[in-house]
């Protein structure tokens, strides 16, 4: 294991150049990329000066690929090949989607339950569609920083709704991998927003973040203390957003025109046209007094015209149910956390849909205070992500240091007898977290067992979300109930789960075969990556060598700074051995022998394992010593 760079708080580990890191808000209706440039956050624009990239990709015939604005234009003319709101499909199965009406030809993906979309360019999984969006933003950032072929972004922070389950988060991370981005961290959208505001105002306390985007809704309660952002509770609805307000308005018009109560009488392209009109009218209302009507007309493909006017008062009535849903989720989150609105220091609004006056009014009423709205609600998440990315890339500067602590958004459980879900890790547990559970066999000589991991709050497995099936194999054949299999569940700082298992008596490591219910297996992601490179085999080798060189360089830097800081933790022999291996690795670094380079990197890393752990322990000691001094100072100040 490698050495750790541990710095005193507020001090960077070693002087190094500024690493470019980006923050990406991968949204349902649009996506943005932002980065810290010479000390301030910029939301990056395309060559036309547009910062919002519509989250739309078109896979046309003859290999035509269009992303963003360009694809949006074809949404009406070629709806089945133009994928919008793909975020709703991330980590989802065919059964989940049936409830929503989508214009796409949805099928079960090959070898997986996650949906795939039939397009003129072949089957596309939501992960691949998202990867195309991320790739576009990645390129935009490269252009903005004028990066050459040999340079790249150090990494990206990508935001996800706080309510996203494991499958949805994993799908997002897979998409980033496909787009060639190193994910520094997935963070929750509302947390990113609070980060943007928290840094600007520096105010500590308990906050609610009300995030109504195009397709998702989240409420989060965050505690900001002593430079640490802690998610106290989250809740939301992944199927509620500004899109639904457009739909509600369109449906209301259709009933008024006696064309039915939904879109069933319309063609796919008529449906899109009407929804776009509804969105425009909704946005126009924001600027108008309650009783003033907007005017517009809509013409069907058969030439018939209809008056599509609406006043704010009418709009508020039509969407009252949707607004009520957001408020009832807000109440629920507060209730669950045992927090009264009077405990809240502020309410932050996020997402373009919070520009609607009806939402602002409802939020002010529910939370008993006017919401905070200083930043552009469309950009605030990307801004926060960029700040976090900059920090994680190691561009820490004095007095500009914070730690983002998170909680598990949904309980993790296992299927037990009778289709019941037994909770292993309850929601809102701070992450990273690990739990171990013991199982036993129920038949003599049983050598395998199957474990079903689910996520959700309900008691019945069928009402929770299936995350994965694990096959434990290689259990020693014993009489029923004699084997003790300890299964360990580890949730990392991104909220992603991994599982390992061991038979306790024999110490046999049972192999775990992970079958993600709605995600891609590692092999599938690797295959997709391979496919992308198949035309450029050489590129891939060049890339692999460069990555290995960067890894080796990083390790060398880390080891030498560790030795100079904490060399006293090493014996003379240990130190000498480490220095020999460093010398050897340095000599290999410039060469082109990939295997040799990897091997020496591994050896140095293994040799410094123990030293790294000793240093980590010292860091814990120092943190404790530092905080008791803090405590004394805090006391004296009072």
């Amino acid at each position, binding site marked *: 294991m490698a050495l750790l760079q541990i710095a005193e708080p507020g001090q960077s580990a070693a002087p190094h150049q500024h690493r470019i890191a980006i923050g990406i808000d991968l949204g349902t209706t649009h996506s943005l990329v932002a980065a810290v440039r010479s000390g301030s956050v910029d939301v990056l624009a395309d060559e036309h000066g547009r910062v919002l990239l519509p989250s739309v990709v078109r896979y046309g015939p003859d290999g035509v690929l269009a992303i963003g604005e360009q694809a949006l234009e074809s949404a009406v003319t070629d709806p089945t090949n133009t994928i919008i709101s793909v975020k709703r499909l991330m980590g989802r199965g065919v059964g989940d989607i049936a409830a929503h009406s989508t214009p796409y030809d949805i099928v079960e993906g090959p070898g997986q339950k996650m949906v795939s979309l039939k397009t003129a360019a072949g089957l596309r999984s939501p992960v691949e569609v998202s990867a195309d969006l991320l790739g576009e933003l990645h390129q935009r950032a490269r252009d903005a920083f004028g990066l050459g072929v040999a340079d790249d972004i150090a990494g990206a922070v990508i935001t996800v709704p706080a309510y996203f389950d494991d499958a949805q988060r994993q799908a997002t991370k897979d998409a980033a991998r496909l787009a060639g981005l190193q994910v520094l961290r997935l963070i929750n959208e509302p947390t990113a927003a609070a980060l943007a505001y928290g840094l600007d105002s520096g105010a500590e306390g308990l906050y609610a973040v009300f995030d109504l985007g195009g397709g998702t809704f989240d409420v989060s309660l965050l505690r900001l*203390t002593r430079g640490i952002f802690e998610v106290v509770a989250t809740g939301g609805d992944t199927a509620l957003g500004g899109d639904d307000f457009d739909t509600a308005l369109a449906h209301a018009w259709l009933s008024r025109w006696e064309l039915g109560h939904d879109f069933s009488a319309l063609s796919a392209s008529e449906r899109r046209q009407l929804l776009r009109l509804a969105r425009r009218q909704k946005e126009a209302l924001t600027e108008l007094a309650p009783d003033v009507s907007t005017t517009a007309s809509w013409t069907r493909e058969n030439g018939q015209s209809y008056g599509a006017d609406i006043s704010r008062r009418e709009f508020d009535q039509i969407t009252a149910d949707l607004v009520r849903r957001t408020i009832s989720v807000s109440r629920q989150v507060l209730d669950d956390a045992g927090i009264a609105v009077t405990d809240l220091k502020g309410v932050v609004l996020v997402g373009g849909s919070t520009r609607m006056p009806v939402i602002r009014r409802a939020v002010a009423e529910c939370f008993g205070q006017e919401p905070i709205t200083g930043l552009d609600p469309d950009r605030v998440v990307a801004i926060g992500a960029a700040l976090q990315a900059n920090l994680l890339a190691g561009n820490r500067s004095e007095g500009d240091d914070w730690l*983002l602590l998170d909680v598990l958004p949904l309980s993790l459980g296992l299927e037990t007898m009778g289709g019941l879900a037994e909770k292993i890790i309850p929601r809102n547990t701070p992450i*990273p977290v690990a739990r171990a559970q013991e199982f036993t066999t129920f038949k003599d000589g049983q050598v395998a067992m199957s474990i079903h991991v689910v996520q959700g709050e309900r008691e019945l497995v069928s009402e929770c979300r299936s995350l994965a099936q694990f096959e434990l194999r290689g259990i020693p054949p014993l009489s029923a109930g004699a084997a003790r299999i300890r299964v360990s569940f*580890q949730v990392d700082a991104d909220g992603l789960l991994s599982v390992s298992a061991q038979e306790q008596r024999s110490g046999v490591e049972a192999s775990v075969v992970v079958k993600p219910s709605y995600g891609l297996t590692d092999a599938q992601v690797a295959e997709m990556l391979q496919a992308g490179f198949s035309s450029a085999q050489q590129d891939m080798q060049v890339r692999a060598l460069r990555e290995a060189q960067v890894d080796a360089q990083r390790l060398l830097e880390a080891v030498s700074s560790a030795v100079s800081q904490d060399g006293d933790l090493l014996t003379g022999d240990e130190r000498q051995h480490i220095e020999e291996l460093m010398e050897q690795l340095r000599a290999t670094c410039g060469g082109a022998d990939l295997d040799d380079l990897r091997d020496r990197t591994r050896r140095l*890393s293994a040799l410094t394992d123990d030293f790294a*752990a000793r240093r*980590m322990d010292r860091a814990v000691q120092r943190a*404790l010593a530092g905080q008791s001094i803090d405590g004394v100072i805090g006391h004296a100040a009072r």
Partner: protein
Amino acid sequence: MISVSGGAAQLSARNHFSLFGLPIRFALDSEALDRAWRAVQTAVHPDRFAAGSDAQRLLALQYSTRINEAHQVLRDPLRRAAYLCELNGVDVDAERNTAMPEEFLIQQMEWRESLEDAAQAGDLRGLAQLEQEVAGATSETELLLEHLLDRSEPDFQRAAAEVRRMMFLAKFSEQLRLEKKRVERGTASDC
């Protein structure tokens, strides 16, 4: 999961209290615990090593996980008491050892009946009163635990029995909370 060698062994060998520089006892300054947790987490969290190698990130993940676990145990009086008993070789063993003093069993039965009656009648005042009684019993048990665990000659066997009593109280007040919510939902409308 932390490899048992060198520094990592030092960390895993350390108990939850010393991990945060706190005295090994039941009485706890919860603000000091939170402060120490944040300070240590700030030093070891994976975010500190986001740009580092895979191995660095894995080590940070293990440390950070361990620190969260210790924090979760210590901040909950019930788990803290059980942990103290275990540290001293007394297993709380709640699954098998369900024996309770007879008077407490009678008390439990009475409470359960009152809960059922009040819930069925939608009697919010009755539920609130019951809640108060259970909260009272909980803080009494906590005081008793402090007495049993923190005195110069601690009685871990008796403390373990009190922990089991407290487990019932915790479970019951959760039931109570859910019933109360259900009744409230039935009568009041959303905000």
